[in-house]
């Protein structure tokens, strides 16, 4: 028995060690990258959702501002669609970055959770920024996110195609419908837009809904139904492809560049790609309004910078200064030109409008643009889901435009 007992004891110990190391392994995962900032050298972590093409442009600005504030900034890029899941995980494990980029409709959601600090703590008031941009970054009266550059939607048209068909640039819905019909030929639709089963579809529906006086807090109103009926009519006319229910905005842009559409609803972020397309002669105007004299109200897009509650006062202060620096006019202009966007501040907007003819129309559009969360706040995602659901129901013929919103609300 001696040998057996000894053997068993050894085994017991090995087993115990194995379980212990497992426990250690699982226990260790919580530790990580929280370095203290007492020694004066502050390193700020930053999470953004930039693509490969716009990251270098922003990096230039990050470097300039890091130098100005006297900190080091480590930027991490995350895919836009994965950001919220990551932010929520970081919020629950208290590992939020020092500076966080958030798409403006998400700011209120995250601010409501208490994860962000008010920017007024760092002397950022949003002065000189249009009201729409302030609304987008505010929650219950406090500013939590500030966007150095913003975007919106306009009507982008193929100049040659319009000239060939002898069509004037449309300014009202009637003109748009007529122009789209006149521009439709074999193999080319008059107009392309995104009516996808996603928030992109919602976003592209808003200029029609808002310009017609419809609002997201009353989706069953006749104004909202009329806007949907207008788009539906153009699909019925055959001047808008019925495939729009599956098109993302990227798809829309590809269709336009390929010559499959003479006009499209899209935003300034496409400008670099459009300008690069050979032989494409295009221009931008605001989205047509229901009747002449109405104001065209487009949705306001753009990513804001926020300062999360990390608990490290010194770092939060530095992060605040860093974000303030990002919103300086010269940096707004660098970012705007680099990725196809409009400077958020009025004075920088005027500067860019003067020397970038393609961005100039968007500067005007942004001035009247409205934030998606301005009315409903954190309830916005629910309304946004109803909007794209209703649009899909109507454009696929599953419901009339008037019924569609009733059904989608259920």
């Amino acid at each position, binding site marked *: 028995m*001696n040998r057996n*007992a000894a053997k068993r*004891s050894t085994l017991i110990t090995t087993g*115990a060690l194995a*379980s212990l190391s497992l426990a250690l392994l699982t226990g260790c995962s919580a530790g990580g990258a929280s370095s203290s900032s007492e020694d004066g050298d502050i390193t700020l972590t930053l999470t953004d959702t930039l693509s490969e093409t716009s990251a270098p442009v922003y990096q230039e600005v990050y470097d300039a501002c890091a130098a100005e504030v006297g900190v080091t900034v480590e930027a991490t890029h995350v895919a836009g669609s994965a950001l919220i899941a990551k932010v929520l995980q970081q919020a629950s494990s208290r590992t939020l970055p020092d500076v966080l980029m958030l798409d403006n409709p998400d700011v209120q*959601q995250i601010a409501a959770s208490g994860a962000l600090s008010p920017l007024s703590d760092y002397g950022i008031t949003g002065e000189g920024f249009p009201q729409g941009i302030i609304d987008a970054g505010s929650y219950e009266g406090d500013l939590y996110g500030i966007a150095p550059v913003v975007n919106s939607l306009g009507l982008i048209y193929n100049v040659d195609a319009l000239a060939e068909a002898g069509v004037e640039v449309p300014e009202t819905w009637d003109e748009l419908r007529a122009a789209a019909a006149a521009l439709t030929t074999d193999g080319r639709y008059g107009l392309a837009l995104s009516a*996808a089963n996603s928030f992109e579809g919602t976003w592209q529906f808003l200029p029609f809904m808002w310009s017609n006086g419809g609002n997201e807090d009353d989706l069953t109103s006749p104004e909202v139904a009329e806007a949907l009926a207008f788009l539906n009519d153009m699909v019925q006319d055959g001047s808008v492809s019925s495939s729009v229910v*599956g098109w993302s905005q990227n798809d829309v842009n590809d269709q336009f560049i390929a010559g499959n559409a003479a006009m499209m609803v899209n935003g300034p972020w496409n400008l670099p790609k459009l300008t690069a397309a050979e032989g494409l002669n295009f221009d931008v105007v605001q989205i047509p309004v229901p009747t002449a004299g109405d104001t065209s109200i487009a949705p306001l897009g753009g990513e804001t910078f926020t300062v999360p509650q990390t608990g490290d006062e010194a770092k939060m202060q530095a992060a605040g200064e860093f974000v303030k620096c990002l919103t300086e006019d010269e940096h707004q202009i660098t970012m705007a030109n680099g990725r196809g966007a409009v400077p958020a501040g009025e004075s920088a907007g005027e500067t860019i409008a003067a020397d970038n003819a393609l961005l100039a129309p968007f500067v005007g559009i942004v001035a009247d643009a409205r934030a998606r969360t301005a009315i409903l706040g954190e309830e916005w995602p*629910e309304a946004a889901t109803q909007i794209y659901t209703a649009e899909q129901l109507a*454009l696929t013929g599953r419901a009339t435009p008037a019924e569609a919103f009733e059904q989608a609300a259920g």
Partner: protein
Amino acid sequence: MSTVLEARTGSPVRASRPRPRGGVRRETFAQWLFLAPAIVYVVVFFGYPVVKNLVMSFQEYTTKTFFTGEAPWVGLANYVEVVQSTFFGITVGNTLMFTLGSIVGQFVIGLLFALFFRKRFPLSGMLRSLLLLPWLLPVIASTSVWKWILDQDGGVLNQALGLVGIGPVPWLTSPDVALIAVVLVNVWLGIPFNVALLYGGLQNIPDELYEAGALDGATGWKAFWHITWPSLRPVVTVTLVLGVIYTLKVLDIILGLTGGGPANSTQTLATDSYFRSFREFDFGAGAAVSNILILFSLVFAVIYLRVNRKQVDE
């Protein structure tokens, strides 16, 4: 290390005495220690998520919860909301149609391929490995390609159909055919799984059975029906049940192709759960939908376990 030494030096002394009660306890303790890693693994990676998901579905669990940790108990409210929504019936119907269509398509085509490759012919090995191709591609990549193929206006499929006079089919843009299109892509994706399993099953049927059968006049269709099918049945059951479980939870293919549209015609329980959680940030309702989905899977998991046990018993 010290315990090892102690145990070694201590054992001869203890050996002379009757075995103490502590020894038994120590032995039980040791047994548990060996089980511990497996138990810890199962509890942490399977038990916790399932229980958490169940609890979540009874809570108002939103973005706030992640920061404050507060999730008010709402009882069955999430389930009521989910079941009463206009599209719940459509969603469940889509889930069942999607699963049934995919399984029938995958299985029948998979079985035909498996039977075909049973015969050895030049290049058969290479062709068989080519069949695994859909498995090797990232799903997101292959769905993007399928999206081009199925495009109504410029897609290759419609151009080919146009040559034989079939007008453009609105594969992904009409609520009437979108589900069929999604099922087609999922069938394509699931064929390798079915071929691999069924081909393996066919290899295990001894040739003697066919030789003996041939002497008795069982060839061709008769041989399949009286020899192949009965011998293959255990493999068939496993293939079907696993296929159903995998198909019920398919998310990426639908997200990539249609995003649940047009007009909810390809919305399944899996996509609905995903949208509720990650678009509307209503994690409670999202968890409720996924629990309903788990319930469906559970039925088939039980069938799978029963069939497996029966096989072991035999």
